[in-house]
């Protein structure tokens, strides 16, 4: 991986801390998955708090198996035409879901 034209990344990524008391499970996981479906970019997730966790393409099943509990750090990566919007929207959704609790 590298950079294409100067200043234009070919991938967007962000580490977010899971603040939802239930973690990224059941209902929050469903909301997260539904949000990913609004974008065309290829989106992956990895629970960097768990050493054994690997980067996985987003699916509801993979989200459930991330084992992302409250306080865990999750790396969200998106690659594609709307990668910036996707990562920003997903990070904002996690904040919103935590705030609703």
């Amino acid at each position, binding site marked *: 991986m590298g950079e294409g034209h100067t200043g234009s990344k070919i991938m967007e990524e962000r580490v977010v801390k899971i603040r939802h008391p239930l973690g990224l499970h059941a209902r929050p996981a*469903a909301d997260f*998955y*539904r949000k990913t*479906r609004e974008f065309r970019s290829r989106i992956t997730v990895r629970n960097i708090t768990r050493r054994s966790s690997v980067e996985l393409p987003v699916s*509801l*099943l993979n989200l459930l198996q991330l084992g992302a509990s409250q306080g865990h750090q999750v790396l969200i990566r998106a690659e594609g035409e709307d990668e910036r919007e996707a990562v920003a929207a997903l990070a904002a959704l996690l904040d919103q879901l935590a705030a609703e609790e």
Partner: protein
Amino acid sequence: MVGILIVAHSEQLASGVKEFADQATHGQVPIVAIGGAIDGSLGINAEAIRDGLHRIASDDGVLVLVDFTSAALSVEAVLEDEPAMRVVISNAPLVEGAYLAAVEASVGATLEETAAAALRARDLMKVHPEHRQRFR
């Protein structure tokens, strides 16, 4: 949108699974829960299954999630009289399958895609690998 019919031997079990799937999808998916025998005891009520199917039947189809084999057999028997209905009976585990199917249906999946999503529940690892010493 694909509809989901939950058939269980207990009314409370069926309703509980529906409650969970409804919450995960914010009530956007047509889900009907049928549980228990006619007298309210544990069992299967074929007429209630037929009514339930008619309530959510559409051109997009219905995915049926069941708790045990006899529930699937009852649904099959009802469908013999309903040849025009587009229905798939899922072999997925009930709770996880209903949840995965409902979320998939809520994003506009086809009946085939919804059925495939439900079946993935069979591969769901509930115990994280880091806790494998306690995993059986």
